[in-house]
């Protein structure tokens, strides 16, 4: 027996082509994916542990300060990385990026005329602990306009990138905030199958809220699980 990874659950994933999100129209693959039998190439993957982190990487309220503090509502975002069998995934790199409190990204291509924050970059990373837990301290990102359709606004979100234990488990996603009225109008969020959209929304948690400092939000990730496959 050899260990491989359960297939992507396509019923929980957005389609490549989702015409309401206009950029998919010319960028979505049109031909069916060709199934691959997992080999070492797919069950291995890049390994980045605690040694790859800088000291302040997980604290976005401090990792780019230039003599002041970032503007906005401080938040803690924490949770666990699990596989679909509920097994915690320790020592996994998580990378995040986000807009500042005014809805502006540091990226030079972002032309939204909201102010940049000299004390905020919006990028961070951490590695999960032995129970698969992670924790970021950051600023709650603002909503921002984009050109998809007339008066289009992205709901506040944080981008997450995870490798998981193998190339097969790679995941890039976005975490949203509870009760955001923009969600129902957002074709990226709405491109997710209806019964899985809630999986992208964080929960406000008083127990993660740090008194007199930051509100706490919880968000768990579920990656593809391992399975036993007979060797042919």
């Amino acid at each position: 027996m050899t260990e491989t990874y359960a297939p992507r659950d396509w019923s929980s994933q957005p389609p490549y082509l989702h015409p309401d999100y206009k950029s998919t129209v010319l960028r979505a693959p049109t031909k069916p994916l060709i199934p691959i039998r997992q080999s070492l190439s797919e069950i291995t993957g890049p390994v980045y542990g605690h040694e790859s982190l800088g000291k302040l990487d997980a604290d976005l309220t401090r990792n780019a300060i230039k003599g002041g503090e970032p503007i906005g509502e401080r938040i803690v975002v924490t949770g666990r990385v699990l596989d679909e069998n509920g097994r915690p995934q320790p020592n996994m790199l998580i990378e995040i990026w986000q807009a500042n409190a005014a809805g502006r990204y540091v990226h030079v291509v972002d032309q939204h005329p909201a102010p940049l924050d000299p004390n905020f970059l919006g990028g961070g990373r951490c590695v999960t602990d032995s129970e698969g837990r992670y924790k970021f301290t950051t600023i709650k990102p603002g909503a921002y306009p984009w050109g998809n359709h007339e008066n289009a606004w992205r709901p506040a979100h944080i981008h997450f990138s995870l490798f998981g234990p193998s190339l097969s488990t790679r995941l890039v996603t976005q975490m949203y905030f509870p009760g955001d009225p923009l969600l129902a109008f957002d074709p990226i969020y709405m491109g997710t199958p209806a019964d899985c959209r809630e999986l992208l929304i964080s929960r406000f948690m008083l127990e993660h809220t740090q008194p007199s400092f930051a509100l706490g939000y919880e968000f768990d990730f579920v990656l593809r699980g391992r399975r036993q496959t007979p060797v042919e």
Partner: protein
Amino acid sequence: MSKLRQTPSQTVGPFFAYALTPEQYGYDFTSIAGGSLIEGDVPGQRIRIEGRVLDGKGEVVPDAMIEIWQADGEGRYAHSADPRGSNVGFRGFGRMGTGTDPQSRFIFDTIKPGSVDGAQAPHINVVVFMRGLLLHAFTRIYFSDEAAANARDPVLASVPTERRNTLIAVRDEKSAGAVYRLDIHMQGPNETVFFDV
């Protein structure tokens, strides 16, 4: 026990660079990986792989992110699932955005991977991300000067003959070094083969 639902993917969007490829784009944040996979005097044949990403109109995509994952020169992965492991200090991971090269190319300087398990031809695993792609796409890069190995490769054999060329990087015979080129076509008559990994 019922399984948990897998977290849905969402697009990487247009603004990933300052967190995922910061050094390449000149942001003040360290990168975990970049376009060069070569550290120190790692053994193996030095190669360069370059290409562009093209959309359904044949226009170059300047905001894609390409990741590559590969074995070392002897076909060993630096990962615990490979019982041999890589003992040459070669991590095997590269990541590059298409937003800094004047021609919007991804350019990787690496070593040519060996055959992973004897059966597969030398190849590099590729993950494609971009605005407009709600979930990443997996593909592979093979090498034009490995015709005999490619002819025996079980993954290439599973691909319709007329589409196999979309996976084979072509060696530039005029170049002094070993340069291979392969464009990634998201759509169109030369649409790249993407895999359900």
